[in-house]
């Protein structure tokens, strides 16, 4: 049992921190980047590729660097600390993760190679209007036509769906079940309407109308793979949220220590410092659960889905607690887009929406609460 990063992981952390810190250490710079499409910094994206970050989770044979989930978690946490808007989660972890999980050898090499090199942005077109974090597709279906497949229907929200060069699309198969397909960004019958999120991120409404699609691996039911990759993405997203919470608390503590009202710094008001202490308790306990879930992802695949919900619930609760208190303890300046703190809260909210909110994860845990006597992290 060890909760610490090893030396290589620390080196990775420091390298990523330096790189993204140069880009977004100045919050004004982040505002500039997210103000214009595609909502992220193409130069930084290539920088991450050069550092090997985009290929981290993929096998070397597929063009990746064959690292593990903990390394991916290290990266996500650093991205979260500066609210880096690059599509690491949607493109590398989710879409790339599915290609790695079910793609053919040729698909893996071709797609993941381009992704790892920073030459191709992927998106995972899965969520459908009205759907709530399910693994199955319903509103997009695939049919076989002579020499190939066509998909038809609507997906939304698709993270970075407008910019993506290639889409991994879930669709109902002719015989039922949810298959996965690759769709090229320039395919016929593909319409994409992108928009910014409140945190400066990007999503899109993506419509397919008889759009040519290539089955990812065999065209068979992939909902179990989707569920598993989504749960893993939740754990990585939790690391990103953790990074954001860490900085949100630091920023708030810094503000309390420097902002003066009534002739003294706010840190003289015990009602405020005690609330900061409670935020710290939320943060520390979240840190532990996020580390545990990351280790589960690395070592105990059979527990990943449960761990995804456990960390999803905790991050939702802590994210709201820390995010909302951070704004309140700042007062007026916390409401402004010019100052960073409100965007941290907005980003924590967006992560919940994309990866499952507290209500969703609590509901999943409620369904299984009678199945076990206790939760033992050491078993």
């Amino acid at each position, binding site marked *: 049992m060890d909760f610490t990063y090893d030396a290589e992981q620390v080196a990775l952390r420091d390298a990523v921190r330096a790189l993204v810190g140069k880009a977004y250490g100045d919050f004004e710079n982040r505002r500039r980047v997210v103000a214009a499409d595609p909502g992220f910094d193409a130069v930084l994206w290539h920088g991450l590729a050069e550092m090997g970050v985009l290929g981290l989770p993929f096998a070397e044979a597929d063009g990746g660097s064959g690292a593990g989930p903990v390394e991916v978690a290290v990266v996500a946490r650093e991205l979260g600390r500066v609210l880096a808007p690059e599509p690491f989660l949607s493109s590398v972890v989710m879409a790339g993760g599915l290609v790695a999980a079910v793609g053919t050898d040729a698909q893996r090499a071709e797609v993941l190679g381009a992704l790892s090199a920073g030459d191709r942005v992927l998106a995972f077109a899965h969520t459908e209007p009205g759907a709530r974090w399910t693994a199955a597709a319903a509103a997009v279906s695939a049919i076989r036509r002579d020499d190939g497949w066509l998909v038809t229907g609507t997906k939304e*929200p698709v993270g970075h769906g407008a910019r993506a060069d290639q889409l991994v699309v879930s669709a109902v198969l002719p015989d039922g079940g949810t298959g996965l397909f690759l769709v090229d960004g320039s395919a016929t019958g593909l319409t994409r309407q992108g928009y910014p999120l409140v945190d400066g991120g990007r999503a899109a409404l993506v419509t397919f109308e008889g759009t040519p699609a290539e089955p990812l691996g065999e065209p068979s039911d992939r909902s179990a793979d989707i569920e598993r990759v989504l749960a893993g993405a939740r754990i990585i997203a939790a690391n990103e949220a953790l990074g954001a919470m860490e900085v949100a608390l630091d920023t708030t503590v810094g503000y309390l220590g420097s902002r003066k009202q009534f002739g003294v710094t706010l840190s003289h008001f015990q009602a405020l410092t005690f609330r900061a202490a409670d935020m710290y308790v939320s943060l520390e306990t979240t840190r532990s659960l996020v580390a545990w879930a990351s280790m589960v992802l690395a070592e105990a695949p059979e527990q990943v889905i449960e761990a995804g919900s456990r960390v999803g619930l905790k991050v939702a609760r802590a994210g709201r607690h820390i995010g909302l208190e951070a704004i309140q303890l700042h007062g007026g300046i916390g409401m402004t887009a010019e100052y960073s703190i409100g965007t941290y809260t907005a980003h924590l909210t967006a992560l919940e929406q994309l990866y499952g909110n507290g209500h969703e994860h609590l509901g999943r845990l409620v369904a299984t609460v009678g199945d076990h006597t206790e939760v033992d992290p050491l078993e």
Partner: protein
Amino acid sequence: MRLRLSDEDAAFRAQMREFFTTKVPRQIRDAVAARRHLTREQLVESQQVLNAAGLAVPHWPVEWGGRDWTQLQRHIWHEELQRAGVPPPLSFNANMVGPVIAAFGSQAQKERFLPPTASLDIWWSQGFSEPDAGSDLASLRTTAVRDGDEFVVNGQKTWTTLGQYGEWIFCLVRTDPDAPKKQMGISFLLIDMTTPGLQVRPIQLIDGGHEVNEVWFTDVRVPADNLVGELNHGWDYAKFLLGNERVGVAPVGASKRVLADAKGWARSVDLLGDPLVAARFAELENELLALELTALRVAANSADGKADPASSVLKLRGTQLQQDVSELAVDLAGPAGVASFGGDGSAAPEWVRMSTPVYLNLRKASIYSGSNEIQRQIIAKTILGL
């Protein structure tokens, strides 16, 4: 004790409800129900409809358009207004500068300002907070120096809500920097926002909207006639302005309307039957009932005219519940809640798209107009004597 409204008050309530739901244009009320930011034109039109019927400034002196209503009637007026989705009369005009001018202004000021203030022919902005004077308002530093028949104003105000529409601004300015206490030496000045040297800069908020502003004053010359009341007594007028409202402090009616609408939203995503969701509705409904009854209690029993300490309770609890309702909406919206800025490029219904910006925007409710920390301070000190 009596539960029911008197026949007279019940009739009054029916009359208000009838007026608000038939005379105020539907597209304005629809915009409120959809939780959109309203346009300047919509706010002006709505207030003018109210004012024409004598319903914009009922708490003003009768001479200037007020009605001699009881506090309970004012409460009913305000709740029905919110319930119908009618935007309340612009607070800066109706609740702030209007009552101050009516109470402390000169006859000339009253005649000049009160009618267009009631009708929103003058749009007022508030110039109180400064970058270094928020909760600690009395430490404000914007100065006004007498120069002949004018004051010369220099400094900066901030958090000026809807200042981009403002035509006039009422300001607290420091006129005696040597006063022994910082609350002394402050004056209350009315300033034409088209005066040279006055500059309004937008501040973007975390919901993406433009709702507040910075206002910069660089040698802005203001006629001395625009001083309200006595020189260096501005703090008294500010306290009057901030303390005289007992009705409408808690946005109960609006929160109830949103919660009622949210039941429909929950049904539309098949979640009203989820016990964990239903429990949040039940808790919020019960707490809003308790708060509404508290507001009613304050209104019904304030005949003695004492400033009621419960206004801090109403503000504190009212904003908490307003925020809780907005949080429920975000949870109902689910993944599509990210599509806030998707507009017609999104398949998400408008309530879903509005959910996150409204949730973020309403963080202001516990910060502006006396933060909830200030309200707790008032309760602890003034009510509990701690």
